[in-house]
């Protein structure tokens, strides 16, 4: 068989049944073989979105998502999507076509050095210049993506490789990838620290979402009487309605979560890299705190916060080891009792019934009305931060967002990928008008392929988050943040064949969401919101959380 057929067969052997992409000249032999394959191919409208869809699919299914782009501009367009997956440790397989090996390096038509471009934003990447390397590379790509810390893998395939000859036996190559080393030598020290802790707190990050260790962490927190705070990436990994879960910490996090983080004596940090958006001023962060840092990636231990005790291993294994080792701990209830009181102080009514619509009201109604297994994705900016702070990700709900790279335009294609991974769940994208305009063309993809996702557009006519920073830190000198002329989003969605409603009164929000949930076609809910509403509370960048800007927030600072 030819290389094109071999490539498709190798993908089928990896149980790939879905891929996202756009064909091109060098990919013609490969696409020709897809005609006879059972793999469903979703034709997207921009390669970046192919990667985002594969990413959304991977985050829901915990299996690698596959995206395909042609050489040159196809590959460069895909870079943003791959980088997004890399920063959030999402396993996607990005396949790009390449010009023939004979002209590689000669500036051929549609040639770009995508191998070099993808190198720093992938966990690993292959450029197949020797036909013999194809089967092993594809098999290894899937293993690398899902071994240890997950991550995207890129395969660059020159077009003449698709014409090479292969036998059936040549495809049966077993790929081997070294398992990451576990290092639990600090386990006894960690247990000792946690046993003697008076004010222990557990901080969970994206690693917990990937290893699905939420239930075990809930058990551990009950054993330790320790509250759980989550990062943006871990929202939903432990249900927000668990009594010991305080919610998301960081710049726009819950104040009680930041309080617990800053006032604990022992912090058990699991699967988090201590992003600057969480820690604020690094020197002030947990100055008196002893840290037990658990991560699957040994290079994360001590990278941003110098861990006193580092444990290298996946969250699920290490948490279970801690549970087994902590049987003797005496429970001290004073800290957790105090946190429970403070948690009540951090509970406000954000069902704001005023016009123009406040974004909090939309998030409130989404929290109330979405089913318990709903998947919410977000774009990036104010919409993401309102969702992070106010959305109740309870029970089996999932929260998908571009946390690391902060890619505007991520949420909508990711929602499409998520819906394909779990067609029975309601999938809603909480969007802003800035982000959505980067990817509106994907309405065509959603409509064409009958993928009914809900786009909840928080439309304030501004690049709101940048505007907020201009307002707070640059004396309201606004530049390049107001959209002078936004399109009519309802007409735009309808032009693509999607359903759409404009909502301008707070009393109509709930009804619109209910219509969205029931919709059998992609639907846009255009919530025209108050452009003056900021995302607050906010801890300014580089400041300690005591210097928080509160706005409507009723938090009294945790003082007695």
């Amino acid at each position: 068989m030819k290389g094109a057929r071999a490539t498709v067969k190798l993908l089928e052997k990896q149980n790939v049944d879905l891929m996202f992409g756009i064909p091109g000249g060098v990919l013609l032999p490969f696409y020709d073989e897809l005609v006879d394959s059972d793999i469903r191919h979703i034709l997207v409208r921009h390669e970046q979105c192919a990667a985002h869809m594969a990413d959304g699919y991977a985050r829901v299914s915990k299996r690698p998502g596959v995206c395909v782009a042609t050489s040159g501009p196809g590959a460069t367009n895909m870079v943003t999507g791959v980088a997004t997956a890399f920063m959030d440790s999402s396993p996607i397989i990005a396949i790009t076509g390449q010009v023939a090996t004979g002209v590689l390096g000669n500036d051929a038509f549609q040639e770009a050095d995508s191998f070099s471009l993808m190198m720093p934003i992938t966990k690993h990447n292959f450029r197949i210049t020797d036909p013999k390397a194809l089967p092993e590379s594809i098999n290894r790509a899937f293993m690398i993506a899902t071994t240890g810390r997950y991550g995207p893998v890129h395969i660059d395939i020159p077009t003449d490789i698709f014409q090479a000859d292969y036998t059936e036996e040549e495809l049966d190559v077993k790929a081997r990838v070294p398992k990451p080393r576990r290092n639990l030598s600090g386990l006894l020290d960690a247990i000792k620290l946690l046993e003697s802790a008076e004010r222990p707190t557990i901080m969970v990050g994206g690693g917990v979402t990937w290893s699905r260790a939420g239930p075990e962490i809930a058990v551990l927190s009950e054993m330790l009487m320790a509250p759980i705070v989550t990062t943006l990436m871990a929202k939903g990994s432990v249900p927000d309605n668990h009594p010991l879960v305080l919610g998301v910490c960081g710049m726009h996090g819950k104040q009680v979560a930041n309080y617990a983080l800053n006032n604990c004596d022992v912090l058990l940090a699991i699967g988090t890299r201590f992003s600057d958006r969480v820690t604020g001023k690094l020197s002030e962060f947990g100055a008196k705190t002893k840290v037990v840092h658990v991560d699957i990636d040994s290079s994360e231990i001590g990278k941003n916060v110098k861990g006193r005790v580092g444990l290298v291993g996946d969250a699920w294994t290490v948490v279970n080891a801690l549970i087994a080792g902590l049987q003797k701990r005496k429970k001290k209830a004073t800290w957790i009792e105090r946190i429970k009181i403070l948690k009540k102080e951090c509970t406000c009514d954000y069902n704001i019934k005023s016009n123009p619509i406040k974004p909090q009201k939309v998030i409130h109604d989404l929290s109330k009305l979405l089913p318990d297994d709903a998947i919410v994705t977000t774009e990036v900016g104010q919409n993401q931060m309102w969702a992070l702070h106010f959305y109740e990700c309870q029970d089996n709900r999932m929260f998908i967002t571009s946390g690391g790279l902060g890619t505007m335009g991520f949420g909508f294609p990711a929602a499409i990928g998520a819906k394909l991974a779990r067609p029975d769940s309601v999938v809603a994208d909480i969007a802003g008008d800035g982000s959505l305009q980067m990817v509106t063309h994907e309405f065509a993809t959603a409509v064409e392929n009958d993928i009914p996702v809900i786009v909840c557009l928080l439309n304030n006519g501004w690049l709101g988050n940048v505007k907020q920073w201009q307002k707070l830190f640059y004396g309201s000198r606004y530049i390049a943040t107001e959209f002078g002329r936004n399109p009519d989003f309802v007409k735009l969605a309808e032009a693509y064949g999607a359903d759409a409603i404009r909502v301008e009164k707070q009393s109509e929000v709930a009804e619109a969401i209910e219509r969205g949930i029931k919709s059998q076609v992609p639907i846009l809910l255009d919530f025209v919101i108050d452009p003056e509403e900021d995302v607050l509370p906010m801890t300014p960048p580089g400041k300690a959380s005591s210097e928080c800007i509160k706005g409507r927030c009723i938090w009294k600072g945790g003082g007695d």
Partner: protein
Amino acid sequence: MEVMMLLVYDQPGVMQRVMGEFTRKRINVETIVVGKCEMPERARIVLSVTDKEKAHGVLEHLRALQEVIEADIVDSDRHEAYAIMQGKQGICRVTGTVEEVEALVMKSQPKRYIEAMNAI
């Protein structure tokens, strides 16, 4: 001065990938030697950097690369060094531990010198 030794697969792109980690972490590589080694299809990279903390920081990142089989910092205490210096008094040969030889070279400030560290 920290000397690092890496065992890698000998294929195109490996140097770029390894050096990419140094670029990202803003580490200036002082010296680098790469070549085929006693094992087939493997190559060894020996390089030196000045910042000890940064050298240790990048180590785990290097080990995480698929094409890197081993990455270690060469223990400078246990290794011998050798230097030939040309100064005002003519040519002078020195042997000893890395620290001793380095200290002597620094102290005598020769016009020209060749220093071989951890070579044996």
